[in-house]
């Protein structure tokens, strides 16, 4: 066909563009994913008793999850747009991970040596990353589904970032049910679960996000 015919077809009576499309494609999957994560966590594991929410550990988990999620939203908003520079925003998720690692390390150093193994492994280290991964899956599915409307040009990186975001949502839901109070535990095993979700996203991205 002649290109000018195609152009005329595309331009005739074309609908105006929704300037908030990218925002919307992040907002509803995050809302839905968070709801699913919290509900599943409550139903499958069980919410902590009210007293637990006075402890700083729960709030550190919340802040970690929210900070990571927000920094990844900023990154993904760029990744979904062809040609948008990601360098300026990549530092925020990295910084969040670094700060959490330092907090975990400091917590360990302030723990007497005899208790350090308990502080690192807790009682649930084996299960925690898998719970975080499991709780992240609804968010991951919703985010990837919404991203198909958009135009990510680096599918592995976008998949990875989407997975990490879903992982942060999973971690937030898990925070309602996780009995561990060690910040070192959070830094290691929550992060492990989030990275697992990232790896799932990275594997699935090049298949699901193609356009």
């Amino acid at each position, binding site marked *: 066909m002649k290109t000018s*015919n195609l*152009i005329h*077809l*595309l331009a005739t*009576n*074309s609908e105006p563009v929704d300037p908030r499309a990218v925002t919307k494609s992040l907002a509803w999957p995050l809302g839905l994913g968070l709801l699913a994560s919290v509900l599943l966590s409550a139903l499958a594991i069980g919410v902590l008793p009210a007293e637990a929410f006075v402890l700083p550990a729960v709030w550190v988990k919340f802040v970690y999850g929210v900070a990571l999620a927000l920094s990844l939203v900023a990154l993904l908003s760029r990744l979904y*747009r*062809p*040609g948008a520079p990601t360098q300026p925003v990549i530092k925020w998720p990295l910084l969040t991970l670094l700060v959490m690692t330092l907090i975990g390390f400091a917590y360990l150093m302030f723990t007497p040596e005899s208790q350090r193994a308990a502080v690192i492994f807790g009682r649930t280290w084996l299960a925690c990353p898998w719970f975080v991964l499991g709780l992240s899956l609804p968010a991951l599915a919703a985010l990837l589904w919404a991203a198909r409307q958009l135009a990510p040009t680096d599918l592995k990186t976008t998949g990875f970032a989407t997975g990490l975001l879903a992982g942060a949502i999973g971690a937030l839901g898990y925070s309602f049910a996780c009995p561990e109070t060690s910040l070192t535990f959070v830094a290691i095993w929550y992060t492990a679960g989030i990275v697992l979700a990232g790896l799932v996203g990275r594997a699935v991205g090049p298949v699901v996000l193609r356009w």
Partner: protein
Amino acid sequence: MQPSDWAQAFEDKLKPLWLSAIGGDNTAYEQALELIASRLRGYFARRLQAMPSEVEDLVQETLMAVHLKRATFDPAYPVTAWVLAIGKYKLVDFWRRHERTGDLHDDIDQVGANELVASEPDEGTDHDLAVLLQTLPLAQRTSIELTKLQGMTAVEAAKESGMSVSAIKVNVHRGLKSLSKLIKQ
């Protein structure tokens, strides 16, 4: 003119047209797409020197993508950068599809005479638009024919076809997506 001056002059011409276009000015949109097509033609011609017959098909495939993914444009950045990023993505996709069939390894002596001649710059190799439209599901075909070939508004097309206005809009979008898949080589 320096190459960078030319690029800036091009962007200065394109951006106001594009901003009008995404605001709903379809005349500006048509002009913007013509400019974008010429820019893409140059971009692909340089990178597909061994396969000049593929250039216009890629231009058309990229134009469809530019249309379907308009919502990903951010006015804070140059339109050209956004367009070329889409073009690069489609080019990489093109290489991926053609690697398997060994299209890249033709010896120049074995290339047919018709492939050595550059086709009309404006003409893709196959895919007559009318023929492609006929292959679409009825709802998609009708929506596109009424709004884009006959120039009806969505409301007029809804009256004419008996479909709801939102069904018309959804089917135009789906129809263009289907067309986009069909024109991929």
